[in-house]
């Protein structure tokens, strides 16, 4: 008798849970559908206007703001010289390159010294934003190339290297680039165009990132776009299209862009100095910087825009093995939670408009709690099926609907990419992306949810400890792509 009641209650609980699960899937995917629609409209507009955007004029304009390109490097001897040369040959009226050699133990510095004929100069580096690691020496290139290399003691934090670079940068715009990012020739002008068009309001811009795996590169430039051989990377190609290209375009259009990738973003230097540069020891330092920028602008009641540029001009290698991918995703998830955590006033605050009322609640509900719901749903479904709490047929339908909705979003993203940038121009690539969009939902999605959950747990565990006391070897390339 008791047992029967228990079974009944349990089955009731499971029924309720499955309703919550259904609601969750519906809400998440529908929000994404809205984001993608907003992004598609915006992208279409961008495309039609492109011939008249006047970036050729901006290249010749004497008032196009000069840019300091900042590259933090830790043990990057293999690619650093090529990356540096690629930056110097970007199509841009005036730029300088600042490389921070953050305590490399390999030949990073020697390679740079030989390539650019570096010479040490005496320099007092102003402490505009706080740094921890001691600056050993400052070197500049002989000749016309405007290259500065800072050698500093490493504290194992990318943020410290970036802050040192911010202190030494001399131009009004800062471009943060990962040492292993591959930029297109017109990358910088495309991403600074919003500053040219709307100099009063634009304070930061972010560039779209795509996986470089499978592409052919020559001397630090992508010469032929290709598809990775590895399926994990192929799935990420679709993921980057859906989440980063369209998701961020959508958020940007809604005025609620929270993440500008550390792999490629441009900021106004004066404002970065005002907000004290990067938060030392922060895990999601790029999201954290943007969050504080939003806060700063709102506090000063200055109208501002943070713009995502959808044009694919920056390529970066994505993990092809599960262990590394897991570590990366764990950190993204943890970084995001910590960012929201350390800027609690933003959440649900009407003063921050769409960011406070839409984007951040979305991140909390779907990016942070999402994995919990998703995994619970998955486990519940299996348990419920095993004990016949739910009808097998019903569960199957429910599961199929959820997955099909996800697939539809991915295919929609592929469609939008096809009508807009169509960078994956071979028929083979099209088929491969379509298959990735299908396969993604079986296994990858569930693993991803688990990794993100791990990140959330890590963040909760460590929240009482100081974040600064976490020495690492080397940087993990950008926290967010």
């Amino acid at each position, binding site marked *: 008798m008791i047992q029967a009641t228990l079974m009944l209650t349990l089955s009731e609980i499971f029924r309720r849970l499955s309703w919550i699960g259904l609601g969750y899937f519906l809400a998440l995917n529908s929000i994404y559908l809205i984001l993608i629609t907003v992004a598609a409209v915006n992208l279409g507009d961008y495309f039609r206007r492109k011939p008249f955007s006047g970036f050729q004029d901006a*290249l*010749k304009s004497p008032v196009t703001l000069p840019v300091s390109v900042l590259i933090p490097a830790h043990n990057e001897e293999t690619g650093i010289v090529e990356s540096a040369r690629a930056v110097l*040959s970007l*199509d841009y*009226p005036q730029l300088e390159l600042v490389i921070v050699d953050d305590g490399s133990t390999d030949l990073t510095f020697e390679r740079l010294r030989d390539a650019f004929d570096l010479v040490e100069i005496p320099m007092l580096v102003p402490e505009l934003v706080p740094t921890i690691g001691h600056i050993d020496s400052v070197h500049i290139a002989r*000749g*016309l190339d405007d290259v500065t290399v800072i050698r500093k003691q490493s504290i194992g934090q990318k943020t410290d290297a970036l802050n040192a670079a911010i202190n030494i940068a001399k131009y009004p715009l800062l471009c943060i680039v990962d040492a292993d990012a591959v930029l297109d020739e017109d990358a910088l002008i495309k991403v600074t165009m919003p500053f040219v068009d709307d100099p009063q309001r634009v304070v930061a811009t972010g560039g779209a990132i795509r996986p470089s795996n499978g592409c052919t590169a*020559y*001397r630090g*430039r992508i010469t032929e776009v290709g598809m990775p051989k590895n399926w994990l990377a192929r799935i990420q190609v679709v993921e980057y299209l859906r989440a980063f290209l369209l998701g961020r375009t959508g958020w940007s259009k809604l005025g609620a862009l929270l993440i500008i990738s550390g792999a490629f973003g441009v900021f106004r230097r004066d404002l970065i100095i005002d907000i004290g540069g990067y938060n030392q020891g922060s895990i999601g330092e790029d999201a954290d910087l943007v969050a504080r920028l939003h806060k700063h602008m709102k506090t000063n009641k200055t109208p501002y825009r943070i713009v995502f540029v959808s044009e694919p001009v920056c390529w970066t290698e994505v993990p092809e093995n599960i262990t590394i991918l897991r570590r990366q995703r764990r950190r993204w998830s943890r970084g995001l939670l910590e960012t929201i955590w350390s800027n609690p006033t933003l959440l649900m605050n009407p003063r921050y408009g769409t960011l406070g009322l839409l984007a951040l609640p979305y991140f909390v509900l779907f990016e942070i709690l999402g994995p919990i719901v998703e995994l619970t749903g998955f486990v519940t479904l299996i348990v419920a099926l095993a004990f016949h709490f739910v009808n097998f047929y019903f569960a199957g339908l429910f599961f199929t609907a959820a997955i099909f909705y996800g697939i539809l979003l991915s295919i929609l993203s592929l469609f939008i990419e096809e009508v807009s940038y169509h960078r994956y121009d071979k028929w083979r690539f099209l088929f491969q992306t379509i298959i990735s969009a299908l396969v993604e939902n079986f296994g990858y999605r569930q693993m991803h949810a688990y990794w993100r959950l791990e990140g959330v747990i890590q963040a909760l565990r460590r929240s009482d400890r100081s974040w600064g006391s976490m020495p690492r070897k080397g940087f993990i390339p950008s926290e967010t792509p």
Partner: protein
Amino acid sequence: MTKILIADDDQDIVELVNYKLTQSGYEVTAVADGKAALEMAREVHPDLMILDVMMPFHSGIDVTLEARKDPELSKVPIILLTAKSMEQDTERGFAAGATDYMTKPFSPRELLSRVQAVLARDV
């Protein structure tokens, strides 16, 4: 016959220059990127090179620098043809070792005169 190598990724410009120079009695070889430009230059030993600055693989400036390092090409006059017109771009071009610098939009007739002048100076 005087041999001229032209490298530009814009097919319209290549054809136009090619025609103009061929009509004027030069032997023209055309390529579309910086890598091909270097390879072709080493093969045909041109008497003059006309290079676009922004092109795939190697920029015109890179090709100039490479050519100057190559004993067989170091003396070949180079005209850079480019959309970049700012002072520091010109400065960079000449510092790399270019003989002359022309900005786009360009006049085909002017280019021809410059080619003739550069070749005359060289002889």
